[in-house]
């Protein structure tokens, strides 16, 4: 009960403190996700339905990666620099409660972007959505993994190093990851790398959830994401409690 109350008040504190920024970020997310669906059709002339379906089911994954591994580390860098992180460490609550409240907020700001991009893509291209009930656990697992990994490395590394990683990740996720196109198009060494990194599994799970009649996903991908998720949050909690 105490933990729940703490969660509630920490959530309110963090949400109200960032209110203006969060609205702005949610709007940006919408623009980016629509941009991915529409923008890539310029890149690929005469795109067939298959290509568009890849883009339309890739956009939500990009949003979640973008939030967890780009925006979040930037925010953490700022709060390390301006002393807010040090202040949070003095609060009379368990550190995991702060992590949970922040995760909820990050998750919430991705939802409008995902919904808007999906609706827009459906109305413009009808790429063949077939949304399964697995979309809920899929989004949750992908978001938690991405946010967890973002927390892990931004707590572990200096702000400069985590900024560098997030820049590489956002470019890599957009251009060199099998999110918006099939894995087979990548060179073999990149394919091997993606067997280990979480991005490929994220996109496979998301695709199977949004277009279940076209794509299938193995249980292995879920297991792989859970491992990454636990590694990320475990690392973050470890660093938060370190003295």
């Amino acid at each position, binding site marked *: 009960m105490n933990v729940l109350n703490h969660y509630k008040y920490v959530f309110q504190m963090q949400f109200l403190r960032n209110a203006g920024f969060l609205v702005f970020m949610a709007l940006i997310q919408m623009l980016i996700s629509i941009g991915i669906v529409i923008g890539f059709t310029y890149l690929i002339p005469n795109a067939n339905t298959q290509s568009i379906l890849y883009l339309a089911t890739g956009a939500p994954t990009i949003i979640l990666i973008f939030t967890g591994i780009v925006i979040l580390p930037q925010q953490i860098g700022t709060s390390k620099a301006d002393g807010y992180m*040090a202040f949070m460490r003095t*609060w009379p609550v368990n550190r995991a409660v702060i992590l949970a409240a922040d995760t909820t907020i990050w998750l919430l700001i991705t939802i409008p972007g995902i919904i808007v991009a999906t609706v827009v893509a459906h109305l413009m291209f009808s790429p063949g959505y077939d949304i399964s009930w697995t979309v809920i656990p899929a989004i949750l697992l992908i978001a938690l993994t991405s946010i967890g990994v973002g927390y892990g490395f931004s707590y572990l590394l200096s702000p400069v190093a985590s900024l560098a990683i997030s820049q590489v990740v956002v470019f890599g996720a957009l251009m060199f990851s099998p999110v918006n196109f099939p894995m087979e198009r990548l060179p073999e060494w990149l394919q091997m790398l993606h067997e280990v990194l979480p991005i490929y599994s994220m996109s496979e799970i998301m695709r199977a959830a949004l277009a279940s009649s076209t794509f299938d996903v193995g249980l292995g991908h879920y297991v792989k994401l859970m491992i990454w998720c636990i590694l990320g949050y475990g690392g973050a909690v470890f660093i938060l409690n370190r*003295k």
Partner: protein
Amino acid sequence: MILDVKGVTKIYTGSNKSQNIVNDNLSFHINEGEIFGLLGQNGAGKTTLVNQILGLVTPNSGDIHLLGESVLASPVRARTICSVQPQSQVPLGFLTPKQAVTLMGKMRAGKHFDATRVDALFEALSMGEWANIEGEKLSGGAKRLTAFCMAVVVPGRLVILDEPTNDVDPVRRRYLWQVIRDLTKNGTSVILVTHNVVEAEKAVDRVAIIDQGKFITQGTPSEVKRAVSDQLRIELNLAQAFTDLEVPTWALSSHRNGARLMFSIDQADVLATIDWAKVQVDQGLIIDYSLSPTTIEDVYIELTSQKVVDSK
């Protein structure tokens, strides 16, 4: 006893294996309802000590007990017993002072939180005009007072205030000291971390001066002042910051801060000093002077600025 610190030593190892002793075998205790001043210059080790009391940093040796239990055993318990105003500004973002203070109160007291306490605090500190303005639009002083209210809205058994009066105007500083005094009436103890010695002297029950990680003196303000109690202090305002003024030979210790020159003298030398000062005024070297009993600031300067005094 609220807090008992025994032989706490904290050593930071630098990148080239150099060892920096930030806290060197510190021991002190704080009783219920007591205001304890922790004075020291920048980098003296005050904040490191506070972080160890909160369980945020683990000492290399020694132990810290809060209400009879070791902080090392349960840091969450330590953070529940203590409430803190950090030295740096709290970035409030879009939070208004009222929201920030209310939420912190709820976080500490849960359902038992009394919302009228927020209004009473704002009233006592004359902060009503800022209550509903977003934090990022507030002045430095208003933000500092908000952070103070967050620490005292539902005070822990031990309230730790790190430079609470920075950026705060003189009128509200007085209100702030009154709020701190009122806290102690309910048995709350306070650690006041500061380098503003003049202000602290009026407020604290006991004081410790820390320099380069060591306590160089501790006790009640009058005990601490006893070392220099038969001395007086003369303070001069120089006509120009660069005036090269020869301090009289009978001056015991001197300290210069821009156009402000202070030195202490024995009571026997009072008349000679006034004559000397008159000559300086007549020559236009100093604008004015004042003579006063020694303060903790004199003790503080004498004990912590040995280098400055020696070089004169």
